[in-house]
């Protein structure tokens, strides 16, 4: 099966129908022991220091792992991705374009997905068969998510790890389904480990993966991973076709659409505070202004750059934030 690299979640159903094995370049980059080497490769090839580390890491991971074809998201993700796709094209990598239309109209989403299907010569009917198959796995991810926030049986990190993997099903949907089923069976036998402070994680998945373990030291845990959950398409069951499924996806569209879903989750999951992660040099840090204003819970914005662990200052800030959230929780519990 031919590999195809992804720079972000795209209608993977189309690629699988076309006989591809999708590989999320983000996961390839961040799970590598050599993650910093990938950044260095990009900087050596001319990527500026003052550019998001994800873009550079994706570039390095792509060229070093011999990926020959990628899907480049040219609308709905960052404009850096557009330039990244252009450089990869220069390096001889074939780039297939995909857009999440900024208008966020159902008709426009449909047009883009139809274009995508045409590129890969697959029919709507064939794609729907694959979509229904994959949605069985998405439902399992939903169950895992419920076990996180309703039963406290899944840690924030485990929740993150499994949901983020649904962008490419770890390259093999059948194998991933088995793994997920086994994991769910295992965690159901666990005793729930309820922490005092219930946190939401919003923003792109972190470079600093140790954040999940770090917060648990202060009797807190993440019971919501916003974007990772979106990668898993938690509302796939209410979508009657692929167009609706990708229309009802918050991450690539405008921030107010995202906020509606976040607000709902804050309430359903009884979230006490939010950690908003943004990447250094990313426009999403500006959206923090709107998120802070619209969400009615305390928010701390933390920024990651090239390190894959939290720095001392960020730890101190998180500690103070969690300490005070814990105080408030004590009062509200009385």
């Amino acid at each position: 099966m031919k590999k195809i690299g992804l720079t972000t979640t795209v209608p993977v159903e189309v690629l699988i129908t076309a006989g591809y094995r999708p590989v999320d370049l983000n996961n390839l980059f961040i799970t590598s022991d050599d993650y910093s080497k990938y950044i260095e490769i990009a900087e050596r090839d001319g990527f500026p220091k003052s550019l998001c580390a994800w873009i550079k890491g994706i570039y390095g991971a792509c060229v070093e792992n011999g990926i020959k074809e990628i899907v480049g998201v040219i609308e709905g993700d960052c404009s850096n991705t557009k330039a990244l796709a252009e450089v990869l094209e220069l390096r001889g990598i074939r780039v297939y374009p995909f857009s999440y239309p900024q208008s966020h109209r159902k008709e426009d989403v449909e047009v883009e997905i139809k274009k995508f299907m045409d590129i890969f010569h697959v029919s709507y009917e064939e794609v729907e068969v694959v979509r229904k198959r994959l949605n069985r796995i998405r439902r399992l991810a939903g169950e895992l998510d419920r076990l996180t926030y309703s039963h406290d049986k899944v840690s924030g990190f485990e929740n993150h790890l499994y949901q983020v993997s649904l962008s490419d099903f770890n390259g093999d949907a059948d194998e991933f389904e088995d793994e997920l089923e086994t994991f769910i069976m295992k965690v159901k036998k666990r005793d729930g480990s309820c922490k005092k402070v219930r946190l939401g994680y919003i923003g792109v998945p972190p470079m600093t993966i140790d954040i999940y373990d770090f917060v648990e030291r202060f009797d807190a845990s993440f019971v919501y991973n916003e974007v990772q959950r979106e990668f898993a398409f938690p509302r796939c069951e209410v979508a009657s076709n692929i167009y609706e499924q990708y229309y009802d996806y918050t991450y690539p569209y405008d921030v107010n659409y995202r906020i509606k879903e976040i607000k709902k989750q804050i309430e359903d999951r009884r979230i006490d505070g939010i950690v908003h992660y943004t990447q250094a040099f990313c426009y999403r840090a500006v959206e923090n202004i709107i998120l802070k204003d619209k969400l009615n819970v305390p928010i701390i914005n933390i920024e990651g750059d090239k390190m894959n662990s939290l720095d001392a200052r960020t730890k101190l800030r998180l500690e103070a934030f969690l300490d005070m959230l814990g105080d408030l929780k004590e009062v509200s519990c009385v």
Partner: protein
Amino acid sequence: MRTLGIDLGSREVKIAVMEDGRIVNKSKVSTMTFYREYCSFDGKILVDLNKLEIDKIDKAISTGYGRNNTDLRMFKAINEIKAHVYGGIYQTGLKDFILLDIGGQDVKVVKVEKGIITDLDLNEKCAASCGRYLENMANVLEIPLNSMSDYYDNPVELNSTCAVFSESELIGKIAEGIDIKRLCAGVSYSLYKRLKPLMSNFNGKDLIVTGGVATNKAVKHYLERDYENIISVEEPQFNGAIGCCYYGESFL
């Protein structure tokens, strides 16, 4: 209910007593005297409340200078930054502000949003932006600390990064025959200049200034350039101790 809050500072120990949400007693003791006269050590520091003339305490909370032992026996020790934020909230009623606390050796800048700390920074390496620096410079000028802070116009330029080098730089300016008012203003301005880089990531409308240096009129005058409202609290030096009381009454 009576709650005792003790803030163990580097120069002075501040003590506050809160009774049903109101501060009813405040006192200050030099740090050296506090440990020597009012404490004994038996595995943990034991404070002699009788000697301090404090009685009928239901709860006791301690905080203070992070590098020292602030964990007193029978007291609940809380983080110093948190203590100051609670002090700021109690004394102003605000939930969104920047807090600047300048003590004897420490500077803290804290961003508070919706009543919670969301960002903070501390000075490191040197205390040249703290109270001790002002005290030393006032000694060099042979002028009381309070009087020194009356002057802020046309400050003489003092550029040394180090507090000790600043003293010799100041002496140089004295030797040049520069007016005492400009010398005084120069001292306060040099402290403000050192604060500025620390504060550059903490933009906002309301700045609450606490700690001993909050009584310095000149420093506050310079800070008015950067913030819409400079909010002074009634007892800037007792803010940490008051925050301890507030914490005790609200959360314990």
